């Protein structure tokens, strides 16, 4: 979907609706068809969300952020506090760690903690992005990338030393009440559909956002920020707004992820900069930065490859993953979407006028 199409009315094209229906149906059927890998499928949607929210900054606004993991981790931890603290002594619970007693919650308590936990996670991601945005979005290019990298490390260290949330020894999230295999299956289905719903909302929201004047303005900032300023665009407001959108969805996403993996290590789960923090960049670049479907394609490709490598090439998985990245960067420097765009421009909504061809 290009802006030119949007400029001429646009709206939901039939192809888009058909795609949504087919893809949605597959997504709803998937956990029932492959009950053994529901958790991996849930994490796939987490990957989709982090890739999309990264692309808002890196692809659409042109600010390569290595600090988006901060909003993910902050959302995860705040949700944990909201889900645990009202029902037990948080300090004693985290101090006991894995030796302590599991938190036995009723269904009402669990859901009564999860719902406000997700809301709080969204708000903290949103608020942190605004605060950090006004501070470091004044940096451009490499300086911004390095600034955000430092931010991620800095925030991770704070949580790794904060006793209240378990510091370096991590903390265990409460579990959905119920025992037994059937109950476990229900639990993973609940979080699968929560993740799927969040991913769907994220994609549809961003699709709408990119079709507005705001979308064009952030693209202009990406292409030439000095020019955008010279044309009267209030760049700071839009940059901060774009990051706060990322932060909002990343916060909820982190909270869901925490509940899926259940054991939270500050540096390996919540603020996994070298892992998830880099993967989100990789997925967006693989699929094609700055395109609506690039992050989805990148996430499918990356997550499937990663899970297969972890299963069949354990021990060599990082080497194989590195090879994949090199192949993509060499043969598809603009990502899969960029490659499709250059081969079949019409397919992605590029309009090539016959007259323009002749005039050229």
């Amino acid at each position: 979907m290009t802006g030119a199409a949007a400029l001429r009315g646009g709206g939901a094209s039939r192809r888009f609706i058909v795609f949504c229906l087919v893809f949605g149906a597959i997504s709803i059927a998937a956990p029932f068809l492959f009950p053994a890998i529901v958790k991996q499928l849930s994490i796939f949607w987490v990957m989709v969300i982090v890739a999309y929210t990264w692309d808002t900054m890196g692809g659409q606004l042109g600010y390569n952020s290595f600090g988006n993991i901060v909003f993910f981790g902050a959302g995860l931890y705040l949700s944990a506090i909201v889900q645990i603290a009202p029902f037990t002594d948080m300090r004693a619970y985290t101090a006991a760690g894995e030796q302590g007693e599991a938190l036995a919650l009723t269904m009402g308590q669990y859901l009564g903690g999860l719902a406000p936990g997700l809301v709080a996670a969204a708000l903290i991601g949103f608020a942190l992005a605004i605060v950090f945005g006004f501070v470091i979005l004044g940096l451009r290019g490499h300086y911004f990338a390095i600034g955000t990298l430092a931010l991620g490390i800095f925030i991770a260290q704070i949580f790794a030393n904060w006793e209240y949330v378990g510091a370096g020894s991590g903390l265990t999230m409460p579990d959905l009440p119920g025992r037994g295999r059937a109950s476990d299956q229900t639990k993973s289905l609940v979080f699968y559909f929560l993740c799927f719903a969040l991913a769907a909302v994220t994609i549809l929201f961003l699709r709408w956002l990119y079709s507005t004047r705001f979308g064009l303005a952030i693209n202009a900032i990406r292409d030439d920020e000095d020019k955008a300023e010279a044309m009267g665009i209030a760049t700071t407001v839009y940059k901060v707004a774009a990051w706060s959108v990322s932060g909002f969805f990343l916060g909820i996403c982190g909270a869901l992820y925490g509940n899926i993996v259940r054991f939270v290590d500050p540096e390996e789960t919540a603020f996994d900069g070298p892992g998830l923090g880099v993967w989100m960049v990789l997925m967006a670049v693989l699929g094609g930065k700055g395109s609506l479907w690039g992050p989805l394609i990148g996430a499918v490709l990356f997550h499937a490859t990663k899970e297969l490598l972890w299963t069949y090439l354990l021990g060599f998985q990082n080497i194989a993953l590195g090879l994949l990245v090199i192949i993509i960067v060499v043969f598809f420097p603009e990502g899969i979407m960029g490659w499709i765009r250059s081969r079949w421009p019409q397919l992605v909504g590029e309009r090539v006028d016959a007259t323009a061809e002749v005039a050229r």
Partner: protein
Amino acid sequence: MTALLSVDRVSKSFGGVTANRDVSVNVGEGEIVGLIGPNGSGKTTLFNTIVGFHPVDSGSISFAGREITKLRVPRIARRGLLRTFQQTRIYPKMTCMENMAVSTPHRGARLTTMLRRHPPEVADKSEALLEFVGLYSKRFLRGGDLSFGQQKLLEFAMALMNEPRMLLLDEPTAGINPTLINGLIDRLKRANADLGITLFVIEHNMRVIMNLATRIYCLAHGQLLAEGPPEEIQNDQRVIDAYLGAE
């Protein structure tokens, strides 16, 4: 004539280099004024200072009767004082139509108004202006795929889309082929006459500036050297000396 833009004794230096010293310039509403001078004489610095790209050391600038000396670039642009760049700046990954649409005036634009789509009039106006500069057939091409000269025309069309009261043009004809230059001069004149846009133009091409401007300022070594109608400037011994290097 009341001045639309008035620059009063503005100085600007970078480290030890004095780029502008006590420069005073007045441009009246509806005028086309030229700014000439040898390379390094401080023309672009003066433009940068006027649009708020960097702070002045001393002096003051006012536009449409209001002080703008301390305002930053986007706010000055929103008041209708716009500049184009010597190196030509467009948005390379966006189509010409998108380049045009994003250039609609941002006066009074708030986050809430930005969360709407462009009304159909924007596309109509974009097409009309692209037609005006001769780029209609290229409207769905990306800005970065145009030739340099075409990018210059696109940048000019984008500036018109912004509905400025006054336009500062930094070498609008540099790099444009000679047959296109006449067309561009004609379009600049029409923008001035039909749309009422005041023009202040830096130009090295003497034939162009003598044709276009009704009044010309000449800078040399950061200072104002001469001011007057084209014929007078053309025959001014100080201007000739500055260009030919006589001291």
